[in-house]
């Protein structure tokens, strides 16, 4: 089993969920988070016109963190590539701030209702 952690734009959440549902991965956990990447947060992330004199002052005036949605789903080893590709396809806009995806190993899972463990506990 692998855990896929995707940090994406909040606005793309609906489209991502629909795309994953179509592929057969309806179960997921979503969190509202604040984050930043290599660009140290962005002033251009919000749809507000920034006066040129502010831009001249450099990045110091920008937003420190950008609101994002953190999406977690646990899938079988073989499905990792499909899910990652689907998330990339839906969320790719070409602009900085599209997000990151991390894949890490998961040792075990337990479904509380039926006490199934391991791969059976997934969908």
């Amino acid at each position, binding site marked *: 089993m692998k855990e896929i952690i995707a940090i994406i734009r909040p606005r793309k959440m609906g489209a991502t969920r629909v795309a994953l549902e179509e592929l057969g991965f309806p179960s997921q956990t979503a969190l509202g*988070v604040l984050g*930043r*990447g290599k660009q*140290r947060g962005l002033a251009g992330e919000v749809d507000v016109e920034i006066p040129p004199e502010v831009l001249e002052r450099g990045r110091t005036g920008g937003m420190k963190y950008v609101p994002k949605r*953190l999406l977690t789903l646990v899938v079988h080893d073989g499905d990792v590539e499909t899910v990652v590709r689907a998330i*990339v396809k839906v969320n790719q806009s070409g602009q*900085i701030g*599209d997000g990151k995806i991390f*894949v*890490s190993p998961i040792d075990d899972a337990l479904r509380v209702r039926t006490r199934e463990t391991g791969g059976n506990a997934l969908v």
Partner: protein
Amino acid sequence: MKMIRAIVRPEAADVVTDGLAEAGFVSLTKIPVFGRGKQKGITVGATHYDELPKTMILIVVEDKSVEEVLKLVQFKAYTGSFGDGKVFVSPVESAFTVRTGTAGL
């Protein structure tokens, strides 16, 4: 790659992130969380608080940088009293940038 989850005091979160940024670890995610440790929350007068607000700082770095980040977090989040927080390190097999679709940090 390793994922480092540092659960620190909310008021120390900015000190930690600024320190990390200075050392070159700019990318991170900040999550407000509630939790408790061995002390089972805190009792102030007659009121017992089961869970305390904390901030989780989530950062993924290359294996060789783990030690430096841990040292930084420990130094910046330290006050010496209970509730300074915990740091967990877990493996990450791969990372992808959504904009370009390429692998790697």
